[in-house]
């Protein structure tokens, strides 16, 4: 069972090969690792003492503000800063899009950056931004993907409004359809949503000569340093980036962004520190989104429940010139399949990675189709899924989790499609599968310092997005040194602490944990070597000596050793299965999620409490995707009509169901990472549950009341 294969030895999750030096390997029996350690920075956050970029105040600090295009597509003829420069309190004003530069003078979406100002107060900066006169030559724009697909869109993008991908084809499609007893031809789609980080994107920039210190709300201090240095044309070592606390990124904060560069330039011109945090509207318009996904699918299934053929034409939009890819048919690998994909460009802000990029879209499209196919051949949806799992890993895990979940969730009480109970409230159950790669990588440098007073400092240029990285560092160090996590002082969120990867794609836990393990292991060996002479024994021998007494032997020069990420302590690929139960009011169209069961593995669980929190958060994020969030554009003007938080809906307390989280322990596999996988499949599970409740399929997200009622009405007419 060590590699988690099924009874026939197929499709397990193999543990990684051991590390080059086996002494670093995780111990078979862990102490503090895997337990529920309270978040180390909890007290800082609950008291408001935690200083986010948004909270940084520097002596003489100014406030920056960006002037943005109100048009989705325009050429900048002229920018006049003179009135703004004379406004009260203004200390700097810059043109970001130079009208004279043909490469840079066009704005491609509402909210595209044009100019920037900085003033002594935020109110003055807002006033001054309004005084910047921009002469726009308004150009034709594209709001709707359909305009492009039907050929009615103007030619907007230099290399065409569409990027056509290559055809991917395996097997014999015609033969596959010949084997099919039933076929389905339908179109499925998901919508564009935005990240809605509660702390908006932004930076505080302070120059000292040609050296820049930047507090950036970022998921990667080192990546932000690279972005700032490149964008400003200065050497990377001249830039220090600090991110002690970060108010949510979800993939959208991998670099400094235009807002960071504008902030740095304003600070340079004003010769004073500048804080520039974008406001809520700008956050929706210009700092990323999850691309849409549409798939026109023809699929065939044999009488005994084997997916024989899958033919899909897919497209999506990631905004102005950005890709919109997603995996399809998600985890399944029917032998005969074909897919053609195109990215469609429209005049909106560009997509950025958003928690499990592509997977929620692929999962929704595939799993709803699977539900329909299962009904066509009158097979239980779980048995149908198990029958069609791919031969490769981790199919054994999915099969196990599907059966385990079915038993716990009460799947045997699920009625066939369509709740026949009298009255307007219909209930139903659904299920969906997830996977994600994750895994660790180098370079991830960690330095461990132990001083004669026994204080242990563990430094790493990683960052804590709220996932609990700081706590994870302490837990791994404590485990290795035999101390309690409270005795460890993690120092992260600063480029001064060395090179580590940006936190994206569930790679942080699996990147940082091995490096901390190795650095602290090396530190312990160095400590033993120092202590040995005092004890008159070999360094390897164990002899009782308290931590404090041992550290007294260190002397004035602290122990300071490094570790770097090595393979062998982390793995890739998680698997999970989620179940949802919903109630749908067929008179109002309102969907209420009653409960969700999430079964999830992520290798060796380092910090149980924060790992569970990631699953709760993933489920709730996906519920938002399913029911509430929607970036709505005005088709004529290309303006986003809900760039706020009252019409861009997000779940509140009353919308959140009971969520049961079951983490599966796989200590043999090393650390993997859990940020992405739990947010992949809830939306699909909810949609399958709604179908089970009301007896008709809603093939696009979000599941708004209007759409539910419309779908029911269509069914009645048909």
């Amino acid at each position, binding site marked *: 069972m060590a590699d988690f294969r099924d009874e026939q030895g197929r499709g397990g999750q193999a543990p990684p090969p051991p590390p080059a030096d086996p002494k670093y390997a995780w111990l078979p029996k862990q102490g503090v690792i895997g337990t529920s350690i*309270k*978040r180390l*920075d*909890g*007290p800082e*956050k*609950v*008291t*408001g*003492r*935690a*200083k*986010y970029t*948004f*909270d940084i*105040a520097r002596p003489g600090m100014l406030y920056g503000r960006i002037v943005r295009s109100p048009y989705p597509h325009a050429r900048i003829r002229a920018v006049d800063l003179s009135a703004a420069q004379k406004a009260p309190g203004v200390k700097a004003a810059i043109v970001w899009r130079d009208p004279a530069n043909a490469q840079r003078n066009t704005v491609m979406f509402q909210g595209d950056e044009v100019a920037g100002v900085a003033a002594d*107060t*935020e*109110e003055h900066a807002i006033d001054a931004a309004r005084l910047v006169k921009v002469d726009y030559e308004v150009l034709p724009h594209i709001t709707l993907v359909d305009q492009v697909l039907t050929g009615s869109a103007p030619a907007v993008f230099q290399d065409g409004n569409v990027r056509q991908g290559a055809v991917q084809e395996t097997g014999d499609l015609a033969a596959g359809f010949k084997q099919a007893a039933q076929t389905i031809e339908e179109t499925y789609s998901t919508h564009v949503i935005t990240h*809605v*980080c*509660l*702390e*908006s994107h932004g930076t505080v920039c302070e120059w000292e000569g040609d050296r820049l210190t930047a507090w950036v709300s970022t998921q990667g201090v080192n990546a932000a340093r690279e972005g700032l240095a490149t964008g400003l044309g200065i050497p990377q070592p001249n830039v220090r980036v600090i991110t002690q*606390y*970060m*108010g*949510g990124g*979800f993939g959208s904060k991998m670099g400094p962004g235009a807002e960071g560069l504008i902030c740095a330039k304003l600070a340079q011109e004003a010769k004073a520190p500048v804080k520039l945090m974008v*406001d*809520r509207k700008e956050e929706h318009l210009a700092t990323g989104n999850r691309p849409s996904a549409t798939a026109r699918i023809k699929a065939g299934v044999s009488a005994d429940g084997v997916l024989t053929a899958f033919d899909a034409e897919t497209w999506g939009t990631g905004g102005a010139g950005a890709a919109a890819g997603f995996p399809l048919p998600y985890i399944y690998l029917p032998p005969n399949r074909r897919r053609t994909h195109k990215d469609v460009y429209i005049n909106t802000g560009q997509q950025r990675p958003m928690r499990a990029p592509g997977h929620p879209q692929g999962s929704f499209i595939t799993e709803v189709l699977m539900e329909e196919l299962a009904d066509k051949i009158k097979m239980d949806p779980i048995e149908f899924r198990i029958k069609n799992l791919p031969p490769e890993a981790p199919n054994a895990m999915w099969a196990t989790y599907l059966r385990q979940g079915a038993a716990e969730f009460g799947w045997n009480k699920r009625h066939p499609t369509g709740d026949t109970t009298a009255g307007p409230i219909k209930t139903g159950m659904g299920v969906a599968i997830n996977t994600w790669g994750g895994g660790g990588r180098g370079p991830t440098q960690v330095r461990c310092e132990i001083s004669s007073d026994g204080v242990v400092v563990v430094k790493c240029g990683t960052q804590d*997005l*709220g*996932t*609990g990285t700081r706590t994870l560092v302490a837990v791994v160090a404590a485990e290795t040194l035999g101390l309690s996590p409270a005795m460890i002082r993690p120092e992260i969120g600063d480029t001064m602490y060395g090179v580590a990867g940006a936190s994206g794609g569930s790679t942080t836990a699996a990147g940082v944990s091995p490096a901390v393990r190795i650095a602290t292991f090396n530190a312990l060996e160095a400590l033993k070597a120092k202590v040995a002479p005092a004890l008159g024994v070999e360094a390897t021998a164990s002899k009782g000596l308290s931590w404090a007494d041992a550290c007294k032997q260190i002397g004035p020069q602290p122990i300071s050793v490094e570790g770097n990420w090595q393979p062998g302590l982390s793995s890739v690929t998680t698997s999970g299965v989620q179940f949802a139960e919903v109630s749908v009011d067929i008179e109002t169209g309102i969907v209420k999620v009653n409960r969700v069961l999430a079964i999830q593995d992520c290798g060796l669980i380092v910090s149980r*409490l*924060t790992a*569970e*929190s990631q699953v*709760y*958060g*993933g*489920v*709730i*994020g996906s519920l938002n995707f399913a029911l*509430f969030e929607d970036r709505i554009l005005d088709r004529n003007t290309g303006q986003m009509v809900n760039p*706020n*938080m*009252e019409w861009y*809906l*997000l*779940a*509140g*307390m*009353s*919308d*959140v169901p*009971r*969520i049961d989280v079951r983490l599966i322990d796989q200590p043999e596999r090393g650390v993997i990472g859990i940020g992405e996988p739990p947010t992949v499949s809830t939306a699909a599970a909810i949609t399958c549950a709604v179908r089970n409740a009301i007896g008709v399929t809603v093939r696009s997200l979000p599941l708004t009341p209007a759409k539910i009622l419309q779908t029911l009405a269509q069914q009645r007419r048909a």
Partner: protein
Amino acid sequence: MARKGKKPGSFSVSRRDFLKTAGVVSAVTAAASPTEAEAQAAAVRGVGPGEVPVRLMVNGKRLDLMIEPRVTLLDALRMRADMTGNKRVCDRGTCGACTMIVDGRPVYSCSTLAIECQGKTVRNIDGLAAGTALHPVQQAFCDKDALMCGFCTPGFIMASVALLEKTPNPTPEQIRKGLDGNICRCGTFSRIMEAVSSVKGVTRG
């Protein structure tokens, strides 16, 4: 998505006062005796557009600020008094990250002018803990991991404190309704439910 919005802080200026400050004195004089109207008109002071003195009572301490009348309670405390605990997120009274307790009631401080709060008692997250001792609600949030990025947390905690001071033993439904005016993006709602349910014995602060 039924969301029970919090009512704004009791705005004590009457419609009549509003008309006066808005400069529509004649509308008032028509309804009042000449001497009374003159006395009222004399008492009217225009404020702004520049900075004006504003005196606030925040966490039991007097705070004298020079701010423009348009500055919100949230921005005044964040940018003029370095009380950065409560956050600005939606900036239009939807998400609750700015929730403070004014005269015992939770308010959205992003949508409350600082100048309106003169003569009222304001409590925010920066003053909730007694020194190093966490308030029971803060402790419960730590114990149950009811926070991730932590940006919504100050608002949730203040809303929870206001709820528990009014309703010390809330039902789950009362907790949900009491916190429906707050939004978390990381998805900590389940943990917040656990945390608030676990707090016992909060008395009015």
